């Protein structure tokens, strides 16, 4: 294990490099502290994006995606296309990725901050650090069902207010939702 400048980030768990990108995994509790530190000490004044990812079924053989059935949302049949090898297991089901950017002329630098979460485990809001996180966090809640703690207005953003379920989760099939205004409803 080599030492890096990211070891002192509050709540640091691990740092890894791949494809020319640096990812810093931090503990859920110290996310805001870590973001404050990165913004103030390393110049990451720009939050580019927040992405929630669902890793349900990630390291199981012969699963590379789910497909929905017309019978309903609960019936999910794994697809048959197999994988050549199993991917490395992930620590928990969900990952929240914060893509930070330091606006330095001629030398833009990026960093990914990653937090791992179980189903229903809340993540602290980074709106106080970067106001732009507002809609990104609402999208993570709407699409993935990540509860964001301390968000000033955590409501659905893309789906309608009374929508059931979180569409981008892996156990939410495509083609499984009831068709509105049809006899099938």
């Amino acid at each position: 294990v080599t030492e890096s400048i990211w070891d002192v980030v509050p709540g640091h768990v691990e740092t890894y490099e791949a494809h020319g990108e640096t990812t810093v995994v931090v503990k859920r509790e110290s996310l805001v502290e870590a973001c404050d530190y990165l913004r103030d000490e390393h110049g990451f004044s720009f939050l580019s994006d927040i992405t929630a990812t669902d890793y349900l079924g990630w390291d199981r053989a012969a699963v590379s995606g789910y497909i929905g059935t017309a019978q309903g949302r609960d019936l999910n049949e794994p697809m048959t296309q197999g994988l050549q090898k199993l991917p490395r297991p992930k620590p928990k089901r969900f990952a929240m990725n914060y893509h930070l950017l330091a606006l330095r002329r001629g030398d833009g630098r990026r960093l990914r901050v990653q937090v791992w979460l179980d189903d229903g485990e809340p993540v602290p809001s980074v709106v106080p650090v970067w106001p732009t996180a507002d809609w990104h966090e609402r999208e993570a809640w709407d699409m993935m069902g990540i509860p964001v703690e301390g968000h000033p207005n955590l409501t659905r953003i893309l789906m309608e207010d009374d929508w059931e379920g979180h569409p981008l989760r892996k156990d939410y099939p495509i083609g499984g939702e009831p068709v509105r205004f049809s006899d099938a409803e």
Partner: protein
Amino acid sequence: MTVAPARPRIYEGSRIPSPVPTILQIPEELRGSDDLLQVNFGPNHPSTHGVLRLLIDLHGETVVGLHALIGYLHTGFEKNMEQKTWWKAITYPERIDYVSFQNNELVFVLAIEQLLEIEVPRKATWMRMLLAELNRIHSHLVWLGTSGLELGAISMFWYCFREREAVLDLFELVAGARMHTRYFQAGGLAEDIPRGFFTECRKFVERMPHAVDEYEQLVDRNQIWLERTQDVGLLSASDAIALGQSGPVLRASGVDWDLRRDQPYLAYGDVDFRVAVYPNGDVYDRYRVRMDEMRESTRIVAQCLDRLEQMDFEPWIADDRKVVLPPREELHTSMESLIHHFKIVTEGYRVPEGEVYVTIESPRGECGCYVVSDGGPKPWRVKFRAPSFVALEATATCLRESLIADMIAIVGSLDTVMGEVDR
């Protein structure tokens, strides 16, 4: 990063609303007042550039409350892409932002290539750059035409769409389709550059600077246009950064930042161009940035043409039979090629396990693509960082204390494409 000095008219400090940065709440002293009027604007309105809905609280003519509601065009692109093989999913990003289709296609293809670690021939790189810049011109023309239309400069629309047609004709010449060309493949281009393209493109490059002059003659000394756009929809540099604004909106607020120069992708490090920066953060400066960018893009296209004309017989796609379809003529003579073709078409190529976040400077700003692969033939997760989505977060700050009549100009100046906002 340098912040250019501002005219004294730009505000000091922060105007981002609190506690919710994207919602303008009615001030305490006005709550319950009989003079308040709530207006619902959209989601179906010709000047919202799609299906944006704004709930506006008016006090007289002044906007005192604002709530932007989106999601009316949510089509589940990201979910759908998880069900498609990598090479089939390339068609989706173009439809996410249907005005800057080639830039969106480019960012997804670059992400696949970064995971595959595949070497792209230089001819493909320069052609991609050429098309991305033509697409930027196309996108700014659509913006200028429609925004002019909304502010009463109706003839602007016809002038802009004249040049837009010329760009679309070039796309048609290259790929057979005017929009959603799907010309980029992982590894290079789908086909070689057709004969006659360079001549036609040269004609356009010679014509375009004069066309931009014409647009400026139409509006830039027009008192109505100036009064409708100057000192309207203010956004300071620090607020723009805090709200994650990018592209022309950020540069019109005086932040000298362009991914093409500051984090070069393709071959942007090898071309000469100027980054347009204006200090006042109003609608007029956003218009100025886009006008300058059209000129600069034309210059980049000309430089790409100079290089491409010397690459006549070079390959346009990488020679990697596990990823790239074999040449059509080989299918009749080579068993190997037939197998490769069959495997790629039916099952798709496999992309090594990993995650990347690739960004490009799209006409609307930083277009990012976060892609996760589990090593299979389909993306595990695709997420687009849509610049329009983030631009709409600034509506509450920009519209603060503005007049209702300026709202159209301000929302228009953020240049949002709702397909990209709602994905």
